Protein backbone atom coordinates (compact mmCIF):
# COMPACT_ATOMS: atom_id res chain seq x y z
CA UNK A 1 0.00 0.00 0.00
CA UNK A 2 2.71 2.46 1.04
CA UNK A 3 4.74 1.34 -1.95
CA UNK A 4 1.80 2.06 -4.26
CA UNK A 5 1.41 5.51 -2.77
CA UNK A 6 5.10 6.26 -3.15
CA UNK A 7 4.89 5.01 -6.72
CA UNK A 8 1.93 7.32 -7.40
CA UNK A 9 3.76 10.34 -5.97
CA UNK A 10 6.85 9.58 -8.04
CA UNK A 11 4.74 9.18 -11.20
CA UNK A 12 2.85 12.38 -10.39
CA UNK A 13 6.06 14.42 -10.45
CA UNK A 14 7.12 12.75 -13.69
CA UNK A 15 3.79 13.21 -15.48
CA UNK A 16 3.45 16.81 -14.34
CA UNK A 17 6.84 17.89 -15.72
CA UNK A 18 5.86 18.57 -19.37
CA UNK A 19 2.68 20.24 -18.12
CA UNK A 20 4.63 22.52 -15.79
CA UNK A 21 6.87 23.64 -18.67
CA UNK A 22 3.98 24.15 -21.08
CA UNK A 23 1.47 25.72 -18.72
CA UNK A 24 4.02 28.16 -17.30
CA UNK A 25 4.88 29.10 -20.89
CA UNK A 26 1.20 29.77 -21.45
CA UNK A 27 1.00 31.80 -18.21
CA UNK A 28 3.72 34.15 -19.48
CA UNK A 29 1.98 34.47 -22.87
CA UNK A 30 -1.48 35.08 -21.44
CA UNK A 31 -0.14 37.54 -18.88
CA UNK A 32 0.98 39.59 -21.87
CA UNK A 33 -2.63 39.54 -23.12
CA UNK A 34 -2.53 36.74 -25.67
CA UNK A 35 -4.07 33.29 -25.87
CA UNK A 36 -1.59 30.94 -27.53
CA UNK A 37 -3.54 28.01 -28.97
CA UNK A 38 -0.46 26.94 -30.90
CA UNK A 39 0.66 25.31 -27.62
CA UNK A 40 -0.38 21.81 -28.71
CA UNK A 41 1.54 22.15 -31.98
CA UNK A 42 4.51 23.80 -30.28
CA UNK A 43 4.81 20.91 -27.83
CA UNK A 44 4.49 18.50 -30.75
CA UNK A 45 7.25 20.33 -32.62
CA UNK A 46 9.43 20.37 -29.51
CA UNK A 47 8.98 16.65 -29.09
CA UNK A 48 9.84 15.99 -32.74
CA UNK A 49 12.69 18.47 -33.21
CA UNK A 50 14.20 17.45 -29.88
CA UNK A 51 14.46 13.78 -30.69
CA UNK A 52 15.40 14.34 -34.34
CA UNK A 53 18.35 16.59 -33.52
CA UNK A 54 19.35 14.35 -30.62
CA UNK A 55 19.34 11.32 -32.89
CA UNK A 56 21.36 13.09 -35.61
CA UNK A 57 23.95 14.65 -33.31
CA UNK A 58 24.02 11.95 -30.65
CA UNK A 59 23.58 14.56 -27.94
CA UNK A 60 20.37 14.82 -25.92
CA UNK A 61 21.32 18.29 -24.70
CA UNK A 62 21.74 19.55 -28.27
CA UNK A 63 18.31 18.09 -29.01
CA UNK A 64 16.76 19.96 -26.10
CA UNK A 65 18.41 23.22 -27.14
CA UNK A 66 17.20 22.74 -30.71
CA UNK A 67 13.66 22.15 -29.43
CA UNK A 68 13.83 25.31 -27.32
CA UNK A 69 15.03 27.34 -30.31
CA UNK A 70 12.30 25.85 -32.48
CA UNK A 71 9.71 26.76 -29.83
CA UNK A 72 10.95 30.34 -29.67
CA UNK A 73 10.76 30.58 -33.48
CA UNK A 74 7.19 29.26 -33.42
CA UNK A 75 6.41 31.89 -30.78
CA UNK A 76 7.76 34.57 -33.11
CA UNK A 77 5.65 33.26 -36.02
CA UNK A 78 2.61 33.38 -33.74
CA UNK A 79 3.71 36.90 -32.83
CA UNK A 80 3.91 37.94 -36.47
CA UNK A 81 0.34 36.70 -36.98
CA UNK A 82 -1.33 38.09 -33.86
CA UNK A 83 0.85 41.12 -32.97
CA UNK A 84 2.07 42.46 -36.30
CA UNK A 85 -0.93 41.44 -38.41
CA UNK A 86 -3.60 41.29 -35.70
CA UNK A 87 -5.11 37.98 -36.82
CA UNK A 88 -7.74 36.51 -34.52
CA UNK A 89 -5.82 34.64 -31.81
CA UNK A 90 -8.05 31.57 -31.74
CA UNK A 91 -7.72 31.02 -35.47
CA UNK A 92 -4.00 31.82 -35.68
CA UNK A 93 -3.14 29.50 -32.80
CA UNK A 94 -5.28 26.64 -34.01
CA UNK A 95 -3.99 27.07 -37.57
CA UNK A 96 -0.40 26.95 -36.34
CA UNK A 97 -1.16 23.85 -34.29
CA UNK A 98 -2.59 22.07 -37.34
CA UNK A 99 0.37 23.23 -39.42
CA UNK A 100 3.02 22.17 -36.90
CA UNK A 101 1.49 18.76 -36.26
CA UNK A 102 1.07 17.95 -39.96
CA UNK A 103 4.54 19.31 -40.77
CA UNK A 104 6.13 17.26 -37.96
CA UNK A 105 4.29 14.14 -39.10
CA UNK A 106 5.40 14.73 -42.70
CA UNK A 107 9.01 15.32 -41.66
CA UNK A 108 8.85 12.20 -39.50
CA UNK A 109 7.82 10.16 -42.54
CA UNK A 110 10.44 11.71 -44.80
CA UNK A 111 13.28 11.27 -42.33
CA UNK A 112 12.43 8.07 -40.54
CA UNK A 113 9.34 5.94 -41.09
CA UNK A 114 9.77 5.80 -44.86
CA UNK A 115 13.31 4.48 -44.36
CA UNK A 116 14.20 2.56 -41.25
CA UNK A 117 11.12 2.71 -39.11
CA UNK A 118 11.20 4.77 -36.01
CA UNK A 119 13.45 7.44 -34.55
CA UNK A 120 14.93 6.33 -31.25
CA UNK A 121 17.44 7.73 -28.80
CA UNK A 122 18.85 6.45 -25.56
CA UNK A 123 16.86 8.75 -23.26
CA UNK A 124 17.92 10.50 -20.09
CA UNK A 125 17.75 8.25 -17.05
CA UNK A 126 16.20 9.37 -13.79
CA UNK A 127 18.63 10.00 -10.94
CA UNK A 128 18.78 6.96 -8.77
CA UNK A 129 18.70 7.94 -5.12
CA UNK A 130 16.50 8.08 -2.01
CA UNK A 131 13.63 5.97 -3.30
CA UNK A 132 11.12 6.36 -6.14
CA UNK A 133 9.87 9.81 -5.10
CA UNK A 134 13.23 11.50 -5.60
CA UNK A 135 14.41 9.30 -8.47
CA UNK A 136 13.38 11.82 -11.10
CA UNK A 137 14.75 13.17 -14.37
CA UNK A 138 16.94 16.23 -14.09
CA UNK A 139 14.36 18.17 -16.11
CA UNK A 140 11.77 17.42 -13.42
CA UNK A 141 14.07 18.89 -10.80
CA UNK A 142 14.74 21.81 -13.09
CA UNK A 143 11.01 22.44 -13.62
CA UNK A 144 10.10 22.60 -9.95
CA UNK A 145 13.26 23.91 -8.31
CA UNK A 146 14.61 26.30 -10.95
CA UNK A 147 12.05 27.14 -13.60
CA UNK A 148 9.01 27.85 -11.42
CA UNK A 149 10.84 30.10 -8.90
CA UNK A 150 12.71 31.83 -11.74
CA UNK A 151 9.50 32.57 -13.65
CA UNK A 152 7.85 33.77 -10.44
CA UNK A 153 10.72 36.16 -9.97
CA UNK A 154 10.61 37.19 -13.62
CA UNK A 155 6.88 37.87 -13.56
CA UNK A 156 6.58 39.58 -10.17
CA UNK A 157 9.96 41.01 -9.28
CA UNK A 158 11.70 41.99 -12.52
CA UNK A 159 11.25 44.90 -14.86
CA UNK A 160 10.43 42.55 -17.71
CA UNK A 161 7.64 41.03 -15.62
CA UNK A 162 6.10 44.40 -14.92
CA UNK A 163 6.20 45.18 -18.63
CA UNK A 164 4.64 41.82 -19.53
CA UNK A 165 1.81 42.31 -17.07
CA UNK A 166 1.34 45.92 -18.11
CA UNK A 167 0.91 45.14 -21.81
CA UNK A 168 -1.47 42.33 -20.85
CA UNK A 169 -3.64 44.44 -18.58
CA UNK A 170 -3.62 47.82 -20.26
CA UNK A 171 -1.49 48.16 -23.40
CA UNK A 172 -2.57 51.80 -23.95
CA UNK A 173 -1.16 52.90 -20.59
CA UNK A 174 1.93 50.76 -21.07
CA UNK A 175 2.51 52.38 -24.46
CA UNK A 176 2.13 55.86 -22.97
CA UNK A 177 4.60 54.89 -20.24
CA UNK A 178 7.16 54.14 -22.94
CA UNK A 179 6.93 50.35 -23.01
CA UNK A 180 7.04 48.79 -26.47
CA UNK A 181 3.85 46.70 -26.51
CA UNK A 182 4.83 44.74 -29.61
CA UNK A 183 8.37 43.96 -28.45
CA UNK A 184 7.19 42.85 -24.99
CA UNK A 185 4.53 40.62 -26.49
CA UNK A 186 6.99 39.08 -28.95
CA UNK A 187 9.28 38.36 -26.03
CA UNK A 188 6.46 36.72 -24.05
CA UNK A 189 5.46 34.54 -27.02
CA UNK A 190 9.05 33.51 -27.74
CA UNK A 191 9.76 32.65 -24.10
CA UNK A 192 6.42 30.85 -23.76
CA UNK A 193 6.99 28.93 -26.98
CA UNK A 194 10.47 27.89 -25.85
CA UNK A 195 9.01 26.52 -22.60
CA UNK A 196 6.20 24.68 -24.40
CA UNK A 197 8.69 23.06 -26.77
CA UNK A 198 10.91 22.08 -23.84
CA UNK A 199 7.87 20.38 -22.28
CA UNK A 200 7.30 18.46 -25.50
CA UNK A 201 10.98 17.54 -25.74
CA UNK A 202 10.87 16.13 -22.19
CA UNK A 203 8.39 13.53 -23.43
CA UNK A 204 10.63 12.25 -26.24
CA UNK A 205 14.07 12.84 -24.70
CA UNK A 206 13.42 11.67 -21.15
CA UNK A 207 10.10 9.88 -20.91
CA UNK A 208 9.94 7.72 -24.04
CA UNK A 209 13.12 7.90 -26.10
CA UNK A 210 11.00 7.59 -29.24
CA UNK A 211 8.52 9.58 -31.30
CA UNK A 212 5.05 8.36 -32.27
CA UNK A 213 2.23 10.24 -33.94
CA UNK A 214 -0.28 11.89 -31.61
CA UNK A 215 2.43 11.99 -28.95
CA UNK A 216 1.14 15.12 -27.19
CA UNK A 217 -2.45 13.84 -27.17
CA UNK A 218 -4.18 16.94 -25.82
CA UNK A 219 -1.59 17.86 -23.17
CA UNK A 220 -1.43 21.36 -24.66
CA UNK A 221 -5.18 21.82 -24.19
CA UNK A 222 -4.84 20.54 -20.63
CA UNK A 223 -2.10 23.13 -20.04
CA UNK A 224 -4.42 25.92 -21.19
CA UNK A 225 -7.07 24.70 -18.76
CA UNK A 226 -4.45 24.61 -15.99
CA UNK A 227 -3.63 28.27 -16.60
CA UNK A 228 -7.28 29.23 -16.07
CA UNK A 229 -7.42 26.93 -13.05
CA UNK A 230 -4.23 28.59 -11.78
CA UNK A 231 -5.64 32.08 -12.35
CA UNK A 232 -2.49 33.10 -14.23
CA UNK A 233 -0.33 32.59 -11.14
CA UNK A 234 2.85 30.52 -11.18
CA UNK A 235 2.28 28.46 -8.04
CA UNK A 236 -1.44 27.84 -8.54
CA UNK A 237 -0.71 26.66 -12.08
CA UNK A 238 2.04 24.34 -10.85
CA UNK A 239 -0.39 22.99 -8.23
CA UNK A 240 -2.95 22.42 -10.97
CA UNK A 241 -0.39 20.48 -13.02
CA UNK A 242 0.39 18.36 -9.97
CA UNK A 243 -3.32 17.69 -9.34
CA UNK A 244 -3.86 16.66 -12.96
CA UNK A 245 -0.78 14.43 -12.83
CA UNK A 246 -2.02 12.90 -9.58
CA UNK A 247 -5.28 11.89 -11.27
CA UNK A 248 -3.30 10.48 -14.22
CA UNK A 249 -0.91 8.56 -11.97
CA UNK A 250 -3.79 7.22 -9.89
CA UNK A 251 -5.68 5.98 -12.93
CA UNK A 252 -2.49 4.21 -14.12
CA UNK A 253 -2.34 2.40 -10.77
CA UNK A 254 -6.08 1.65 -10.81
CA UNK A 255 -5.61 -0.19 -14.10
CA UNK A 256 -3.45 -2.69 -12.22
CA UNK A 257 -6.09 -3.35 -9.53
CA UNK A 258 -7.57 -6.81 -10.24
CA UNK A 259 -11.06 -5.84 -9.07
CA UNK A 260 -11.17 -3.11 -11.71
CA UNK A 261 -9.76 -5.17 -14.55
CA UNK A 262 -13.23 -5.58 -16.05
CA UNK A 263 -13.59 -1.82 -16.31
CA UNK A 264 -12.58 -0.64 -19.80
CA UNK A 265 -9.24 1.13 -19.42
CA UNK A 266 -10.49 3.87 -21.75
CA UNK A 267 -12.78 5.08 -18.94
CA UNK A 268 -9.74 5.50 -16.71
CA UNK A 269 -7.79 7.18 -19.49
CA UNK A 270 -10.62 9.69 -19.91
CA UNK A 271 -10.64 10.49 -16.18
CA UNK A 272 -7.87 13.14 -16.20
CA UNK A 273 -9.56 15.11 -19.00
CA UNK A 274 -12.91 14.95 -17.21
CA UNK A 275 -11.21 15.95 -13.96
CA UNK A 276 -9.83 19.07 -15.66
CA UNK A 277 -13.29 20.02 -16.93
CA UNK A 278 -14.77 19.39 -13.48
CA UNK A 279 -11.99 21.45 -11.92
CA UNK A 280 -12.76 24.32 -14.30
CA UNK A 281 -16.47 24.04 -13.53
CA UNK A 282 -15.77 24.37 -9.82
CA UNK A 283 -13.05 27.02 -9.85
CA UNK A 284 -13.31 28.65 -13.25
CA UNK A 285 -16.18 30.98 -12.40
CA UNK A 286 -15.51 34.73 -12.56
CA UNK A 287 -11.79 34.26 -13.05
CA UNK A 288 -9.80 37.47 -13.56
CA UNK A 289 -8.70 37.25 -17.19
CA UNK A 290 -5.87 39.65 -18.10
CA UNK A 291 -7.45 42.96 -19.10
CA UNK A 292 -6.27 42.94 -22.72
CA UNK A 293 -6.80 39.17 -23.22
CA UNK A 294 -7.47 38.35 -26.90
CA UNK A 295 -7.31 42.01 -27.91
CA UNK A 296 -4.76 42.99 -30.57
CA UNK A 297 -3.17 46.35 -29.84
CA UNK A 298 -3.24 49.13 -32.40
CA UNK A 299 -2.07 52.66 -31.85
CA UNK A 300 -4.85 55.04 -32.79
Amino acid at each position, binding site marked *: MIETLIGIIGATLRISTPLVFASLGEVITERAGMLNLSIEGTMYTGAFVGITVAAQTGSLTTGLIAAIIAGAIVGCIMGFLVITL*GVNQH*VAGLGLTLLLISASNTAN*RILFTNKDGMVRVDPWKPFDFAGPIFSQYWLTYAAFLILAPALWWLLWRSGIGIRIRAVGENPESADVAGISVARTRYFALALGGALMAAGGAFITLAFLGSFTINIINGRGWVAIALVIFGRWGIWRTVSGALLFALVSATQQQLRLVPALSDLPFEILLALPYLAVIAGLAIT*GRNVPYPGAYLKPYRRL
Partner: protein
Amino acid sequence: MLIAIAIIFTFIISSAMIRWAGANPFAAFKYLLGSPLQSKFGITEAILSATPLVLTGGAVALAFRAGYWNIGAEGQLLAGAICATFVGLHADGIPHWLGIILMVIAGALGGMLWAFVPALLRSRLGIDEVVTTLLLNPVALLVVTGLLNGPWRNPETKFPETQVLSENVFFPRVYPGSRIHLGLIIGIVALAICWWVVGRTAGGLKMRAVGLAPGAARIAGLKVERTLFTTALASGAIAGIAGAGEVAGVAHQLTDGISPGFGYTGVVVATLAALSFPAVLLISFVLGIINVGSFSASRALSIPSTIGEVVQAVLLTTVVSALVFMKYRIVLDKGKHRD
Protein backbone atom coordinates in the same frame (compact mmCIF):
# COMPACT_ATOMS: atom_id res chain seq x y z
CA MET B 1 -5.96 40.01 -55.16
CA LEU B 2 -4.78 39.52 -51.60
CA ILE B 3 -6.18 36.01 -51.68
CA ALA B 4 -4.07 35.37 -54.78
CA ILE B 5 -0.99 36.54 -52.90
CA ALA B 6 -1.96 34.24 -50.03
CA ILE B 7 -2.21 31.31 -52.44
CA ILE B 8 1.19 32.15 -53.93
CA PHE B 9 2.66 32.24 -50.42
CA THR B 10 1.01 28.89 -49.68
CA PHE B 11 2.62 27.47 -52.78
CA ILE B 12 6.07 28.80 -51.85
CA ILE B 13 5.95 27.59 -48.24
CA SER B 14 4.54 24.17 -49.12
CA SER B 15 7.09 23.80 -51.92
CA ALA B 16 9.92 23.84 -49.41
CA MET B 17 8.44 20.80 -47.71
CA ILE B 18 7.65 19.01 -50.98
CA ARG B 19 11.17 19.66 -52.30
CA TRP B 20 12.61 18.29 -49.08
CA ALA B 21 10.47 15.17 -49.53
CA GLY B 22 12.30 14.73 -52.81
CA ALA B 23 9.67 15.75 -55.34
CA ASN B 24 9.18 18.55 -57.81
CA PRO B 25 6.70 21.03 -56.24
CA PHE B 26 5.02 21.74 -59.60
CA ALA B 27 4.46 18.05 -60.19
CA ALA B 28 3.19 17.65 -56.64
CA PHE B 29 0.68 20.48 -57.00
CA LYS B 30 -0.42 19.08 -60.34
CA TYR B 31 -1.35 15.89 -58.52
CA LEU B 32 -2.73 17.66 -55.43
CA LEU B 33 -5.09 19.93 -57.33
CA GLY B 34 -5.27 18.58 -60.85
CA SER B 35 -5.44 14.82 -60.78
CA PRO B 36 -8.79 14.55 -58.95
CA LEU B 37 -10.36 16.84 -61.55
CA GLN B 38 -9.19 14.84 -64.53
CA SER B 39 -11.58 11.95 -64.12
CA LYS B 40 -15.21 11.55 -63.17
CA PHE B 41 -14.09 9.15 -60.47
CA GLY B 42 -11.69 11.72 -59.02
CA ILE B 43 -14.35 14.42 -58.92
CA THR B 44 -16.89 12.18 -57.21
CA GLU B 45 -14.30 11.02 -54.69
CA ALA B 46 -13.43 14.66 -53.94
CA ILE B 47 -17.13 15.39 -53.37
CA LEU B 48 -17.35 12.35 -51.10
CA SER B 49 -14.33 13.58 -49.18
CA ALA B 50 -15.91 17.04 -48.94
CA THR B 51 -19.23 15.74 -47.54
CA PRO B 52 -18.28 15.61 -43.83
CA LEU B 53 -16.43 18.93 -44.21
CA VAL B 54 -19.61 20.62 -45.48
CA LEU B 55 -21.29 19.67 -42.19
CA THR B 56 -18.40 20.28 -39.78
CA GLY B 57 -17.48 23.50 -41.61
CA GLY B 58 -21.11 24.64 -41.39
CA ALA B 59 -21.26 23.70 -37.71
CA VAL B 60 -18.12 25.68 -36.89
CA ALA B 61 -19.16 28.66 -39.01
CA LEU B 62 -22.53 28.79 -37.24
CA ALA B 63 -20.94 28.79 -33.78
CA PHE B 64 -18.22 31.30 -34.73
CA ARG B 65 -20.87 33.64 -36.13
CA ALA B 66 -22.32 33.91 -32.62
CA GLY B 67 -18.85 34.31 -31.12
CA TYR B 68 -19.03 30.85 -29.58
CA TRP B 69 -15.62 29.23 -30.13
CA ASN B 70 -16.71 25.66 -30.66
CA ILE B 71 -13.49 23.79 -31.43
CA GLY B 72 -15.08 20.51 -30.42
CA ALA B 73 -16.61 19.54 -33.76
CA GLU B 74 -14.29 16.52 -33.82
CA GLY B 75 -15.71 15.15 -30.56
CA GLN B 76 -19.26 16.06 -31.55
CA LEU B 77 -18.82 14.24 -34.87
CA LEU B 78 -17.57 11.14 -33.05
CA ALA B 79 -20.45 11.30 -30.55
CA GLY B 80 -22.88 11.52 -33.46
CA ALA B 81 -21.18 8.54 -35.08
CA ILE B 82 -21.50 6.54 -31.84
CA CYS B 83 -25.23 7.24 -31.45
CA ALA B 84 -25.84 6.52 -35.13
CA THR B 85 -23.96 3.24 -34.83
CA PHE B 86 -26.15 2.30 -31.87
CA VAL B 87 -29.22 2.79 -34.08
CA GLY B 88 -27.59 0.91 -36.94
CA LEU B 89 -26.81 -2.10 -34.76
CA HIS B 90 -30.42 -2.38 -33.60
CA ALA B 91 -32.24 -1.56 -36.82
CA ASP B 92 -33.30 -5.01 -38.01
CA GLY B 93 -36.84 -5.11 -39.29
CA ILE B 94 -37.51 -1.40 -39.62
CA PRO B 95 -38.30 0.24 -42.94
CA HIS B 96 -35.39 1.87 -44.80
CA TRP B 97 -36.85 5.38 -44.75
CA LEU B 98 -37.33 5.18 -40.99
CA GLY B 99 -33.80 3.87 -40.53
CA ILE B 100 -32.34 6.85 -42.40
CA ILE B 101 -34.38 9.34 -40.38
CA LEU B 102 -33.38 7.65 -37.13
CA MET B 103 -29.71 7.79 -38.14
CA VAL B 104 -29.88 11.54 -38.77
CA ILE B 105 -31.72 12.13 -35.49
CA ALA B 106 -29.29 9.93 -33.57
CA GLY B 107 -26.30 11.76 -35.07
CA ALA B 108 -27.77 15.13 -34.20
CA LEU B 109 -28.62 14.04 -30.66
CA GLY B 110 -25.13 12.63 -30.13
CA GLY B 111 -23.51 15.84 -31.31
CA MET B 112 -25.83 17.95 -29.15
CA LEU B 113 -25.11 15.77 -26.14
CA TRP B 114 -21.37 16.25 -26.61
CA ALA B 115 -21.83 20.01 -27.06
CA PHE B 116 -24.14 20.24 -24.04
CA VAL B 117 -21.63 20.36 -21.16
CA PRO B 118 -19.35 23.06 -22.63
CA ALA B 119 -22.43 25.05 -23.67
CA LEU B 120 -23.91 24.81 -20.18
CA LEU B 121 -20.62 25.71 -18.50
CA ARG B 122 -20.25 28.70 -20.78
CA SER B 123 -23.77 30.04 -20.52
CA ARG B 124 -24.29 29.37 -16.80
CA LEU B 125 -20.85 29.83 -15.29
CA GLY B 126 -19.02 31.79 -17.96
CA ILE B 127 -16.34 29.14 -18.39
CA ASP B 128 -14.27 29.44 -21.56
CA GLU B 129 -15.69 27.03 -24.15
CA VAL B 130 -12.43 26.83 -26.13
CA VAL B 131 -10.78 24.67 -23.48
CA THR B 132 -13.77 22.50 -22.62
CA THR B 133 -14.71 21.75 -26.23
CA LEU B 134 -11.08 20.94 -27.05
CA LEU B 135 -10.65 18.66 -24.05
CA LEU B 136 -13.75 16.64 -24.92
CA ASN B 137 -12.30 15.67 -28.33
CA PRO B 138 -9.83 13.06 -27.00
CA VAL B 139 -12.52 11.87 -24.58
CA ALA B 140 -14.88 11.14 -27.48
CA LEU B 141 -12.17 9.14 -29.23
CA LEU B 142 -11.61 7.18 -26.02
CA VAL B 143 -15.33 6.39 -25.86
CA VAL B 144 -15.14 5.10 -29.45
CA THR B 145 -12.12 2.88 -28.78
CA GLY B 146 -13.64 1.75 -25.48
CA LEU B 147 -16.79 0.59 -27.25
CA LEU B 148 -14.80 -1.02 -30.08
CA ASN B 149 -12.51 -2.88 -27.68
CA GLY B 150 -15.47 -3.85 -25.51
CA PRO B 151 -19.14 -4.46 -26.25
CA TRP B 152 -19.04 -3.51 -29.93
CA ARG B 153 -15.99 -5.52 -30.96
CA ASN B 154 -16.66 -7.37 -34.17
CA PRO B 155 -17.65 -10.92 -33.05
CA GLU B 156 -16.41 -12.52 -36.30
CA THR B 157 -13.14 -10.81 -37.09
CA LYS B 158 -12.31 -9.86 -33.44
CA PHE B 159 -11.00 -6.59 -34.84
CA PRO B 160 -11.74 -3.37 -32.92
CA GLU B 161 -14.55 -2.37 -35.28
CA THR B 162 -18.28 -2.95 -35.19
CA GLN B 163 -19.96 -5.48 -37.42
CA VAL B 164 -21.47 -4.07 -40.59
CA LEU B 165 -24.63 -2.18 -39.73
CA SER B 166 -28.12 -3.15 -40.81
CA GLU B 167 -28.73 -2.27 -44.45
CA ASN B 168 -31.90 -0.54 -43.30
CA VAL B 169 -29.86 2.45 -42.18
CA PHE B 170 -27.44 2.83 -45.11
CA PHE B 171 -27.60 6.25 -46.71
CA PRO B 172 -28.58 5.77 -50.37
CA ARG B 173 -26.11 6.73 -53.11
CA VAL B 174 -27.31 9.88 -54.83
CA TYR B 175 -25.20 9.77 -57.97
CA PRO B 176 -24.97 6.54 -59.93
CA GLY B 177 -21.54 4.98 -60.27
CA SER B 178 -20.06 6.91 -57.35
CA ARG B 179 -19.90 6.71 -53.57
CA ILE B 180 -21.56 10.12 -53.09
CA HIS B 181 -24.36 9.57 -50.56
CA LEU B 182 -27.34 11.27 -48.99
CA GLY B 183 -25.04 13.03 -46.50
CA LEU B 184 -24.09 15.55 -49.19
CA ILE B 185 -27.74 16.53 -49.73
CA ILE B 186 -28.24 16.78 -45.97
CA GLY B 187 -25.12 18.95 -45.73
CA ILE B 188 -26.27 21.32 -48.45
CA VAL B 189 -29.73 21.56 -46.87
CA ALA B 190 -28.14 22.23 -43.47
CA LEU B 191 -26.00 25.01 -44.97
CA ALA B 192 -29.07 26.50 -46.67
CA ILE B 193 -31.00 26.45 -43.39
CA CYS B 194 -28.07 28.03 -41.52
CA TRP B 195 -27.73 30.68 -44.21
CA TRP B 196 -31.43 31.47 -44.02
CA VAL B 197 -31.66 31.46 -40.22
CA VAL B 198 -28.52 33.53 -39.67
CA GLY B 199 -29.12 35.99 -42.47
CA ARG B 200 -32.88 36.28 -42.66
CA THR B 201 -34.50 35.65 -39.29
CA ALA B 202 -34.80 37.53 -36.01
CA GLY B 203 -33.01 34.74 -34.18
CA GLY B 204 -30.12 34.99 -36.64
CA LEU B 205 -29.93 38.74 -36.15
CA LYS B 206 -29.65 38.15 -32.39
CA MET B 207 -26.91 35.60 -33.03
CA ARG B 208 -24.89 37.98 -35.16
CA ALA B 209 -25.39 40.79 -32.64
CA VAL B 210 -24.12 38.54 -29.84
CA GLY B 211 -21.17 37.54 -31.99
CA LEU B 212 -20.19 41.04 -33.04
CA ALA B 213 -20.76 42.91 -29.77
CA PRO B 214 -21.85 40.82 -26.79
CA GLY B 215 -21.74 43.79 -24.45
CA ALA B 216 -23.95 45.93 -26.65
CA ALA B 217 -26.30 42.99 -27.24
CA ARG B 218 -26.71 42.54 -23.50
CA ILE B 219 -27.46 46.24 -22.99
CA ALA B 220 -30.00 46.03 -25.81
CA GLY B 221 -31.81 43.38 -23.77
CA LEU B 222 -30.83 40.29 -25.72
CA LYS B 223 -30.46 37.08 -23.77
CA VAL B 224 -26.83 36.58 -24.70
CA GLU B 225 -26.31 33.40 -22.70
CA ARG B 226 -29.41 31.72 -24.08
CA THR B 227 -28.42 32.61 -27.65
CA LEU B 228 -24.94 31.16 -27.11
CA PHE B 229 -26.41 28.00 -25.57
CA THR B 230 -28.85 27.43 -28.43
CA THR B 231 -26.21 28.12 -31.08
CA ALA B 232 -23.76 25.75 -29.40
CA LEU B 233 -26.31 22.92 -29.39
CA ALA B 234 -27.27 23.56 -33.02
CA SER B 235 -23.61 23.55 -33.98
CA GLY B 236 -23.06 20.28 -32.13
CA ALA B 237 -26.07 18.73 -33.83
CA ILE B 238 -24.77 19.59 -37.31
CA ALA B 239 -21.33 18.18 -36.50
CA GLY B 240 -23.00 15.06 -35.11
CA ILE B 241 -24.90 14.52 -38.37
CA ALA B 242 -21.51 14.51 -40.13
CA GLY B 243 -20.58 11.55 -37.95
CA ALA B 244 -23.83 9.75 -38.78
CA GLY B 245 -23.12 10.39 -42.46
CA GLU B 246 -19.67 8.83 -42.30
CA VAL B 247 -21.09 5.75 -40.56
CA ALA B 248 -24.23 5.35 -42.67
CA GLY B 249 -22.87 6.60 -45.98
CA VAL B 250 -19.24 5.53 -46.24
CA ALA B 251 -17.92 3.06 -43.66
CA HIS B 252 -21.20 1.22 -42.85
CA GLN B 253 -19.58 0.37 -39.52
CA LEU B 254 -17.81 2.22 -36.71
CA THR B 255 -14.01 2.13 -36.67
CA ASP B 256 -11.54 4.16 -34.62
CA GLY B 257 -10.43 5.83 -37.84
CA ILE B 258 -13.93 7.04 -38.69
CA SER B 259 -12.70 10.65 -38.62
CA PRO B 260 -9.19 11.64 -39.72
CA GLY B 261 -9.71 15.04 -38.10
CA PHE B 262 -12.84 16.18 -39.98
CA GLY B 263 -13.79 18.30 -36.98
CA TYR B 264 -10.51 20.22 -36.92
CA THR B 265 -10.63 20.60 -40.71
CA GLY B 266 -14.11 22.06 -40.15
CA VAL B 267 -12.42 24.99 -38.41
CA VAL B 268 -10.15 25.41 -41.44
CA VAL B 269 -13.15 25.29 -43.79
CA ALA B 270 -15.19 27.80 -41.78
CA THR B 271 -12.29 30.22 -41.49
CA LEU B 272 -11.26 30.00 -45.15
CA ALA B 273 -14.92 30.58 -46.02
CA ALA B 274 -14.86 33.73 -43.85
CA LEU B 275 -17.85 32.20 -42.01
CA SER B 276 -20.08 32.51 -45.08
CA PHE B 277 -22.26 29.44 -45.56
CA PRO B 278 -22.27 29.34 -49.39
CA ALA B 279 -18.48 29.64 -49.28
CA VAL B 280 -18.31 26.69 -46.86
CA LEU B 281 -19.64 24.50 -49.66
CA LEU B 282 -17.02 25.73 -52.12
CA ILE B 283 -14.10 25.51 -49.68
CA SER B 284 -15.14 21.99 -48.61
CA PHE B 285 -14.91 20.91 -52.23
CA VAL B 286 -11.47 22.51 -52.63
CA LEU B 287 -10.18 20.76 -49.50
CA GLY B 288 -11.82 17.54 -50.70
CA ILE B 289 -9.79 17.84 -53.91
CA ILE B 290 -6.59 18.33 -51.90
CA ASN B 291 -7.47 15.30 -49.73
CA VAL B 292 -7.95 13.03 -52.73
CA GLY B 293 -5.04 14.62 -54.59
CA SER B 294 -2.65 14.11 -51.70
CA PHE B 295 -3.10 10.36 -52.05
CA SER B 296 -2.40 10.36 -55.78
CA ALA B 297 0.59 12.66 -55.21
CA SER B 298 1.77 10.29 -52.51
CA ARG B 299 1.48 7.27 -54.82
CA ALA B 300 2.96 8.91 -57.89
CA LEU B 301 5.84 10.80 -56.30
CA SER B 302 6.31 8.68 -53.16
CA ILE B 303 6.00 11.64 -50.83
CA PRO B 304 4.03 11.41 -47.55
CA SER B 305 0.27 11.86 -48.03
CA THR B 306 0.26 14.12 -44.97
CA ILE B 307 1.61 16.82 -47.32
CA GLY B 308 -2.06 17.55 -48.11
CA GLU B 309 -2.67 18.49 -44.47
CA VAL B 310 0.39 20.74 -44.53
CA VAL B 311 -0.91 22.55 -47.62
CA GLN B 312 -4.34 23.02 -45.99
CA ALA B 313 -2.85 24.39 -42.76
CA VAL B 314 -0.49 26.76 -44.62
CA LEU B 315 -3.42 27.93 -46.74
CA LEU B 316 -5.40 28.66 -43.57
CA THR B 317 -2.57 30.71 -42.07
CA THR B 318 -1.87 32.75 -45.20
CA VAL B 319 -5.55 33.38 -45.95
CA VAL B 320 -6.41 34.59 -42.43
CA SER B 321 -3.46 36.95 -42.74
CA ALA B 322 -4.78 38.19 -46.09
CA LEU B 323 -8.29 38.59 -44.64
CA VAL B 324 -6.88 40.99 -42.03
CA PHE B 325 -5.54 43.23 -44.76
CA MET B 326 -8.91 43.16 -46.50
CA LYS B 327 -10.48 44.72 -43.40
CA TYR B 328 -8.46 47.84 -44.06
CA ARG B 329 -9.69 48.19 -47.61
CA ILE B 330 -12.74 50.13 -48.73
CA VAL B 331 -15.33 47.53 -49.58
CA LEU B 332 -17.53 48.70 -52.43
CA ASP B 333 -20.07 45.88 -52.78
CA LYS B 334 -22.67 46.54 -50.13
CA GLY B 335 -24.19 43.77 -48.07
CA LYS B 336 -21.19 41.55 -48.42
CA HIS B 337 -20.46 39.71 -45.21
CA ARG B 338 -17.21 40.43 -43.54
CA ASP B 339 -15.61 38.70 -40.56
